[in-house]
Each structure stands twice: as C-alpha cells, then as structure tokens.
C-alpha cells in the first residue's frame, strides 16, 4: 500500500506541477536599478488594481476591528460619539479636501502623494496600538490578529504606492517610509485621557483614513479608464 500511495502522490505532483509552479513563482520583479521593492515589471493597471485591493481590505479590516473594540471595551453611551464633538483625529500636515467636487479636482499626483502620506503616518501608530492592545486583559484574539494584519498590509501598501508613484508620475525621488510627522506617540486630545477611549479614537481615525485611501485610489483608477466621466460628476 505504501508503494501505491507514493505512486499516487507522484502522479498528482506531476499533474499539478504547472499549477504549483505558477502559484509559487511570483511576478517578475526585475527592477532597472536593482532595488528590491515590489515587482516593478508589473503593468500600471495591474499594480493599481492590487493597490486598490490592498486598500479595500485594509479598510474593511479596520472597520471590523473598530466594531470589535467598540463592542468589547467602549461603554454604550460613548459609542458612535453621538453627542460628542470632542474627539478628533490628528490633522495631517496638509489639508485633505472633503467634498466630492473638490476631491475630484485633485490631480493624480496629489492623490497619490496623499495616499502615501496617509499610509506612512499610520505605520507607527498601529504598532503602538498593538502594544497597547496587548495590555488589555480580555482583548479578543481576532482583534489582535486584525490589527497585526493591518499593520503588515500597510507596509505592503506603502511599497505599492511608492512603486505606483514611480511608475505613474515618473517620480523617483521618493523613498519608502519617511515620516513627515513625528507620530511616535500619537497626538492625543487633551480631553481624552482614558486609554480605552484613546484606543477607540485611534481605531476610528484609522478607519476613516483607510476610507480616504480607498476613495482616492478608486478615484485614481476611474481616471485611468475614463477620464471624462470621472471628472464630470
């Protein structure tokens, strides 16, 4: 019987060889300058799709984390900040327009740069959030996993956006992970002192920024395909 099993496995391996090869081999990543970032040989459209995928996933996971955290730790009256105008997220170095019309008028370059800045600004706070979440006694595993996953994906997203910028804007001057602001300790509102509310605020702000990233990238994609319809709205 052992021989039979070995034979079967060999046959299966031979049959599935192409699939294995195709799955295992990554896309060609030959960079002209020899740097090893993402696969630079990928086409722009595919790269943009991948970046958008990343952003969507990050956004969805951040929303789930926020909901989880809210259910576990935030007392009911504080939820959804119905009456609160107090907390606010840290403002970025540059204003991001909020209305649709304004956003639609933003240039590609600006969109991409904004995304990059957003991504980079959240790398460290998420790491910080992970450490604080570990201090919670009954933090659910899923929450910890999600935040960990998000911080990992954020790095990938950053790399992708950098490559995208290089490809689309032919801008080679950017390097990865440069921090505009010193956000090592996340800037807190003075009135929010409790750690729970602080973390909740962190998660909510991150969710919002993830939404921003996704929106910008989608807008960018729309422009790639059909410039007229995207602008006219």
């Amino acid at each position, binding site marked *: 019987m052992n021989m039979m099993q070995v034979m079967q496995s060999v046959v299966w391996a031979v049959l599935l060889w192409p699939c294995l090869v195709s799955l295992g081999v990554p896309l060609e990543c030959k960079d002209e300058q020899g740097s090893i970032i993402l696969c630079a040989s990928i086409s722009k459209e595919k790269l943009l799709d991948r970046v958008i995928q990343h952003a969507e996933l990050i*956004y*969805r996971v951040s929303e789930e984390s926020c909901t989880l955290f809210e259910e576990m730790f935030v007392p009911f009256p504080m939820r959804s900040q*119905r009456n609160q*105008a107090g907390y606010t997220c840290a403002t970025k170095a540059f204003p991001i327009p*909020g*209305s*649709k019309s304004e956003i639609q008028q933003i240039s590609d370059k600006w969109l991409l740069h904004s995304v990059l800045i957003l991504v980079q600004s959240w790398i460290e706070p998420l790491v910080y959030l992970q450490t604080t979440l570990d201090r919670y006694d009954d933090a659910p595993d899923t929450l910890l996993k999600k935040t960990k996953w998000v911080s990992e994906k954020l790095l990938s997203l950053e790399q992708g956006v950098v490559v995208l910028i290089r490809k689309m804007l032919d801008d080679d001057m950017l390097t990865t992970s440069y921090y505009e602001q010193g956000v090592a300790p996340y800037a807190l509102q003075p009135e929010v002192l409790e750690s729970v509310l602080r973390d909740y605020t962190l998660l909510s702000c991150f969710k919002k920024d993830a939404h921003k990233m996704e*929106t910008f990238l989608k807008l960018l994609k729309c422009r790639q395909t059909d410039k007229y*319809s995207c602008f006219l*709205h």
Partner: protein
Amino acid sequence: MTSSDPSVQAPHLTGCKSREQETFRCWWSPGSFQNLTEPGALQIQYWKKNDLTKEWKECPDYSSSVKNECFFNKNNTVIWIKYCVRLHSESQNKTYDTLCFELQDIVHPDPPVALNWTLLNISRSGLNYDIMASWEPPPSADVSVGWLTLVYEVQYRRRNSSHWKVLEHEFGTQQSIYGLQTGEAYEVRVHCAMRAFNHFGEFSDVIFVHVPEIPNKESTFPVTLVLIFGAVGVAILLMLIIFSQQQRLMVILLPPVPAPKIKGIDPALLKNGKLDELNFILSGAGMGALHSYPPDLYQDVPWVEFIELDADEPEPGEKDNQSSDSQRLLGHNNHHTNHGCFHGLSIPDDDSGRASSYDPELPDQETLMLMAALLSCQPNKVDTPSLDVLEVPCPGLQAPDLPPEGGERHLVQTQLGGPQSWVNMDFYAQVSDVTPTGGVVLSPGQQVGAPENTPTTKKDKKGKMEGGEEESEEEEERRTNKLKFQLLVVAPEAGGYTTESSGRQMSTPDPSSPGEVYHTFPPPSAESKPHQEAYLPATTLLGDYQSPYILPDSPPAQFLPPVSDYTVVQDVDFQHSLLLNPPSPQRSPTCSPQPPSKPLPVMPIGYLTPDLLGNLSP
C-alpha cells in the same frame, strides 16, 4: 431624550441620513410639546469641524415637501469631517438634541433598480430549479467613479411565508438562488449598503418568481436507471471485496476441520512410524508441550504391534537405534530419561555392555517416552541422573472400555535396571488366561496396595529429598517391602506363568473389573534414595491414578504374597520370548519374598511363548 413621562416626549432629532454620500438630510420631531408645533419654533443648526468660526449655522434648506426635514446639498457637505447638528429653539434658547456624525457614516444607499430574474436550470426530477437574480445599482450612487462601493443583500421567501431568507452579501450585481421548488411562488428583493458600514438602505421592489410544474413522464426512467446502476455498483463492490479477501472469507465460511493430532507432535510422524523423531519429541524437545495423550491413541499406534514378537534379531549390544522394536521397547537403547511420574518405566541400557536383554541399567529413554506418552501420561522430569525411570503420571485417562481379551493391548513393561528395576508402571496387564491360540487374556489385576494418603506426602517430598528423609525412607521401605511381596509376581509355578488363582492368592484381585488393571511395580530396593523417591511417588500416586489401566478399587490392607495376577515383562530374550521374571542378582536382595519362586527358566513373565502354552495349567 425621553422624559420620565412616556406620554410627554421632548423634541428630538430622529436621524440624519445620506443617500449617496454627497447630500444628507436630517429630521426631527417636535414631540408632544404643544407650544412648539408651529413651524419655525425649532431650528436645526449645524456646525462643521473645520469651520473657522464656532458658530452654529442654520439649516440651509428646510424641505418644503417633507415636514421637519432639513436638507444639506452637496455644496455644504464634506466627508471625513465631523458635523454636529442640533435642534434648537431660538425663542427659548434651548437645545433639545444634538447629533454629531461624519458623512460617510450615515450613508444609506438607495435601493437597487431593475431587479430581474432568469431561470438557470431545472432539476431532472422537475421539482427544483435555480434562478439568477440581477439588478443594477441605484442611480444616485456614484459607483462607477468609485465614490461609493456598495455591497448587496438579496432576500427571498415564499409567497405566503413571513420569514425572509437572507443570502450572503454580494459585491456584484447578480446573485443566484438555488433550490426553489416548482409550482411555488416566491418573492425576491434586494438592498444595498456602503461597504464596511453596514447601513443598509431601503429594499427594492419585490419581484415574483414562479415556475410551473412540468409533468415529467419520464420520471420513472431515471429512477430505474439509478436502481440498476446502484445494484451493479454494489455487486461490483461485493465482487471486489470477495476477490480481495478470498482467503479470509474462505476461512470464515468454511473453517478448516482440525485434524486429530497431538499437541506438539506432527501426526505425520505417527503415521509413518518415525519413532525416532517421535521419541525425540516426546523426550526432550517437545516434552513441555505434550500434555495429555488420549488413551485411544494407543490403540492405533503401530508400535504396539511390537508386542507381537517380530522377526527382528534382538541384539543386546547394539547401540544402533534401529534395533528390534521389542528390544527398543524394553529399553535396549541408550536413551533414558527420568520423570517424576508415578508410572515408572525403565528400560535397560544397551550401552552398558550387558549382553542380556535384561539390563538393569539405563532404560531406553525413547521407548520409555513413547510408552509413557502413549499412555497419556504427563511426564514430570525428575532430575536423578542414575535413575532411568520413566515415570509418567496419567491422571486423565478415560474409563476403561477395553475388552478384556485385548491381548494386544497390554503393554510391555520393561525391566528396571538395578535398584530401580521396579518401577511403577501402569501398563501392565494381568494375564488372567491364555487362549488356545496363544493369546494372552488379560484381566484386571491386583492393585498394588499403596495407601492413598502416603502417596501425596511422598510426592510432596519427592522434589525436596531432604528433611525427614530418614523417616520417609523407612516408610518407603516398609511399603516397598509390602509391595515387594505383591510384586514378585510371577513366581510362576509353570515357568513364569502365574495363574490367576495364584495371583489371587497374593493379592485381592478384582476380576470383575472389566478394564485392564496395571500394577505398578514398587521399587524393589530401599537402597537408593533417589530411586525410592522416584518410585514411591509413582506407587503412591497409584492410588490416585485414574488411568483406565488401573483400578484402585481394592486397596489391599494386608501384606500379600507376591502378586501373581499380573505379569511384567522384564525382557525379551533372543528367542523373542518374554522374560517375565528374569533372575537378577541385583534384584534378589531387594526382592526378599520370593519363596514361591522357583528357579525359572528364562521365560517371559506373564507372557507365554507358544511352546509354553502347553505347560500351562489354568
């Protein structure tokens, strides 16, 4: 928000919603306060986070169509920025309610449009079918630009049911529904929400799905086909199982009939008469495995025929294992073994150089073993080097069902060598009569009067051999002396032949017993301890012996003259005549009571040669 009195309700904001993330509306309720119902009494004021001034602005557009609604158009709406809206009464300068939100959090998309369904397939039985429901996103949502990313949820139910079945969220604009039943009417609806915000908008219009039943005349055909295929498949499976497990099935269904055999002994050995191997098995190698030998085995064993004097030349000095059967029987070979069995059988040893067939020395182990084995005795080995006695206890023999005239059934008892010449052997038959044709008729003979109690004690001491040996020896001596009397046997008046009557004089025979009784020879000498030790247990155990060849039913309590009821073949001389009472100088001192013994010719004891028959007097 609610006062203590449920009937009185303060004015409050009922909610703010956005349909497409570009505009939003807010509604309020004036409550049950009477003085605030007129329009204008309450205002909606809002404030944006990024406003430079912290003033509350008035609602830009009170809806004319809808009461108590404030509409914020796209010029005033921004996303990702917090709004705060409050219900304020200017006259009273009192704020009844405040609501803060961000635009993207209050998006409730419009329902999808153009919901439609198409039939995918119908099952073969005609009972079930699948459909594909498709729709389009709400026109107000700017999905193409990517401003909104929607997720849809389809629900369906039977026409008269009240419970909606909810399907998984779908990111595309079509969803397949499986498992609907023909003939039933279904309702399908869909609504959407902004992805990751889970605020579903209103439901779309309900569409009705209905597929009439199709009478399938060929419905029986596939059923029979399935049955046929199933039966064929099962049959094939069974065949495979049977063929693969053929051996095991054969064993289970037709278990092999066990052939009669002795444990540890190959039945082929017996058939072919390979005594050597058999003896070997019985002696050393297979001794432990041979437990009980059915007495019936003894009937068909060909070597028993050896008792019939065969034509082989008896050669006393022959060391070859192929000596005559009788000689082998009587122990003219080298082998000897000791067994703590109470049936002693010792065969004279050939190698000692004694010419006479009567050899008091080492008995033939092979023959001993064989005879012992065939008598269904359990040999217990007794480690006495000089003792060549085969003592085989035979506890489990069946009830005697042997015909008294089974002349061939008596076993030859070989002579014991030296001091151990007299060993309890239970394959002796008492010759009660001689048939005219020369056959010897055996009858149940005298049992050696060995008390039952002493045997056990003796047997216990058998292995120890120390402590109280003196006393035991004395007892043994006494008993052996007693037994000797009975033993001597043969004292035949007519040359080795002891009549039944004379035999009866010596003992209390039991002629009525149908079975053959074998007397056990008590050890003739009390000299050697090991012999005694070896013998006595044999004798003692005689009482407990259940062998059919011995009927311990007449315990003799008195001294008896030497037993003449039974005869013991001591040896077979060259003429193939059996020596019943060979005159042994070594034995004579032990066998004190020999008054009736006459100088006997070399004649077999108990067994008659044909020429002696004439001398017999019944």
